[in-house]
């Protein structure tokens, strides 16, 4: 890490871009696996924001809490992936498809 220029603004910008990509992926993609991947991207955008601001405020009160939150999010992301993939698998088994178009039983 030494030698690189640490800029909070660039980190926040990167995190925002990642979050936007993830959100766009969820909204636009039909494939459920890809939607799950987009969700992972959004979670990691949040993670990036946490760790970069934790670094920035490492000496202040509550320093290190950001890293702790990042760890929690990783665990959460793993759980989410496991449950999400299981759901996708179940949907595929029951309906023969894994796209968002195929799962519209709640249509009004």
């Amino acid at each position, binding site marked *: 890490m030494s030698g690189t220029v640490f800029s909070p603004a660039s980190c926040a910008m990167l995190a925002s871009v990642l979050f936007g990509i993830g959100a766009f992926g969820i*909204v636009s993609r039909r494939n459920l696996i890809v*939607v799950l991947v987009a969700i992972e991207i959004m979670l990691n955008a949040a993670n990036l924001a946490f760790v970069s601001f934790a670094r920035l405020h490492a000496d202040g009160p509550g320093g290190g809490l950001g890293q702790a939150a990042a760890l929690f999010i990783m665990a959460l992301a793993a759980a989410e992936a496991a449950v999400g993939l299981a759901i996708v698998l179940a949907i595929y088994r029951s309906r023969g498809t894994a796209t968002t178009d195929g799962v519209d*039983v709640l249509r*009004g």
Partner: protein
Amino acid sequence: MGLGDLIFLIPMFPLAGFLLSGLAGGALGRRGVSLASCGLPVLSFLLAVGVVSRIAGSGATIEQDLGRWISAGLLEARFVLRADRLSAAMLLVVAGVGTLIHIYSTGYMRHDRGYARYFAFLNLFLGSMLLLVMAGDLLLMFAGWEMVGLCSYLLIGFWYEKDANARAGMKAFVFNRIGDLGFLVGIFLTYYAFGTFDSARIREIACTGGVTDPVTGLFRAVPADLSLVPLICLCLFVGATGKSAQIPLFVWLPDAMAGPTPVSALIHAATMVTAGIYMMARLSFLYAMTPEVMAVVATVGAATALLGAIAALTQTDIKKALACSTISQLGYMVLGCGAGAFSASIFHLVTHSFFKAALFLCAGLAIHALGGMQDMPGMGGLRRRMPWTYGAAAISALALAGIPPLSGFFSKDAILVGTLGRVMSDGPSPGDPGGFLAILYAGLYIAGTACEALTAFYAVRWVALVFLGEDRSAPATGMEAGGAVAVSVGAGASVARGSYEHGEGAGKEPATMLAPAVALAFLAAIGSTLAMIPAGGGLTGFLAGAVAGPVGGAAEPSAGANYFAAAASAAMACLGALAAWFVYIRRGHVPASVPAGGLRAVSFRLFHFDAVYDAAGAAVLRLARGLCLAVDRILLDGLLVREAFGGGARRLGEILRRTQTGTVNAYAALMVFGAILILVCLVLAPGGGP
């Protein structure tokens, strides 16, 4: 403990009998029930005799305050029993005739399954009636009034297995309720005007404008709204028309004959139906203040007297004929009240209770002897088989007919003399320049006198059809031997009631039934002496202080008017009796059970009042049904359900359901959009932003 502390026992004895027979009737057995339910009224009667002799001696009022009854804010009603001269006269009649009819009932009902139930109700009635008579204030009187109405309902429908009987009970109850509403409104108005329910206090305030403290003798003026008195009197009269079977609420009384015959004698002839007369006499001082309302009362009374008498001319049911006669005689009493001859009305009430109860008891004996038959064209000739019954019935019928010197003549004459007195005193006055009231009362007097002829006609006709002529009951006597008999003769005109499981024929009248009938007939014969004793003006003099005297300070009718009225009454009665003698005895005419048509049918069906009420009731129901239908279909179903709430919700749903695409991507897009919106709001909000 003086007599004054014991008067509460007069109504309490029969009420105790009600509890005894009602709760422990099975354990007591028939003998025990008979003993309790006849013995307790005897005790009441003896106590009443004691009370009356005390009052007759001193003229004082005996009063017993049994404590607070209703207390709500300023309103306080106390449970006060009071015996003055008016209630004393009623006490003797109610307890005396009531006791006799209880004894009669032990014979009449002896084979009935509901023996204990019957006597429980009869005792309850007697206690309620005594309570009504002794009530010191209008609220307590209303309680008694309602209780006797309940007993009437229970006893009309006593043989409730038969649908017609149950319906007759309901009809009586409903028509009484219409009157009761008027009575209740009258009571409320009285309280509004006078600030008290107590009839003695109302009288004091109405007559003197205030209250005199009995201890200190200090007079305290009480402001009372006397302009309400005519309205009060009208409302109370509506109550009287219900209970005392006046036009237009009389239609329940002929149907009330569905009950056992002793009940018809006690409740629907002698006592309960006279409650309206008693109430008006009790408040006579209020009526005396409003000549206009009195004119209405008198007119209704005379019209009812005529209507009842005309209806009685063609009845073929032995009890219905008497019921129509009761309506007519009650009309006479109301006419007396309307003419201001309140004591004459009470006099007629007393004599009527004697002769009409006796007639009903004789009718019961005849019905019993014929195994339940009530159709007069199927009777006849009972004179030979039942001489004692015939004698009692003949004397009572002549008393009803108003043949001198029997009691009915004197009491009816007293009413007619009172009416004639109004004609003479009500000349043209400042308030009535045309002398309208005098003309009206003259018309009513003529109607009342003409009605005497009709009364005599139907009374003699009744005796002739039941007791004289040939025995036409051969088929019925044949059925008697068959055990339980349920005879139904005539197309619904007369229906056998109850269970006659006995087979004894005519001529073997049980003493328990014959003795009360004969005793009442004896009283009907000598009841005229009430006009002479006790000394000092007879019953009228006895009641002088208790009811309002002649209205407007009118002088007593002259001796000439008295003799004229008496001669006219006697002549009319003899004329009617002779006509009936000619038609039904000399020529032996026997009417058909149901008249074919024409004027006879109009009389037979009581001027079709029932049909009119049925039609009017049906019209009202149809109107109500149409109204309900319109409200339900158009307002509720149509406007509210289909258009406003239901339709609106459905249309909103139609719009909103388009947002529910079921596609995850759309939901996610909305979520993102929402999140951005929240962010924008946070940034733009005052004090927000980075």
